[in-house]
């Protein structure tokens, strides 16, 4: 289990190796990587700045990760989220889940992202080529994604 918030980029291969190196009980590793899109609503953006709430963001990510570990038999998990100024194509977030079998790893990774997006205190501000900038609005679809997990318990945990 691990949580990191950092300005610097992450290396997916190195993070997987750090999580699974030397272990023979893991049969499945799933990774999700979120990256900065170059457009917002069809218009180009030049950068995206991520703000967070030091202390609460870490606590909220730890709660989300503990919840995933309670629902699925995970061997290991990691959430890395970047903050500060990012540019189109840059990595934003990395989620890694490892389990003996793939269903738990797949489902837990999706669960972690859905919860992170609707609960962890991060805010994105996008800058445009004309020098203006705008805070990104929260999406209704992210809330809907979360509700899925409140209705159906995991099949993989059985």
């Amino acid at each position, binding site marked *: 289990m691990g949580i990191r918030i950092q300005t610097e980029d992450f290396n997916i291969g190195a993070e997987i190796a750090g999580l699974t190196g030397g272990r023979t009980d893991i049969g499945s590793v799933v990774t999700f990587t979120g990256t900065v899109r170059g457009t917002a609503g069809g218009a180009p953006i030049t950068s995206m700045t991520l703000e967070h*709430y030091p202390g609460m963001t870490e606590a*909220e990510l730890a709660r989300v990760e503990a919840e995933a570990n309670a629902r699925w038999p995970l061997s290991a998990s990691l959430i890395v989220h970047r903050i500060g100024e990012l540019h189109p194509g840059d990595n934003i977030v990395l989620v890694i889940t490892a389990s003996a079998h793939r269903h738990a790893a797949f489902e837990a990774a999706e669960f972690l992202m859905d919860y992170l*997006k609707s609960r962890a205190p991060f*805010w994105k501000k996008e800058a445009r080529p004309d020098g203006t900038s705008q805070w*990104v609005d929260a999406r209704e679809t992210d809330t809907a994604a979360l509700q899925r997990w409140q209705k159906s318990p995991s099949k993989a945990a059985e």
Partner: protein
Amino acid sequence: MTSGTKTNTVTLRYFAWVREKIGFAEEEISLPAEVATVAELIEWLKARGETYRAAFDKPEVVRTALDQTHARADTPIANVREIAFFPPVTGG
């Protein structure tokens, strides 16, 4: 603050566009005891000035955390030390 005075000293923290509208990130404030819930605190803050009214123009949009835990409009704020206001989160 002498003991027996009915005020509650809290740190208020603002993030993202709530911070921009209020004009700063953090303040320490003494709340009268009758300000008992998140919703009452927002009304009390709005009476403090135009920047607060702008930040809480649509209070249903603003999210709140009490001591770094998500809270709702009707959550009591007694004994809370840190209250944060922010827009719906957009990480990931």
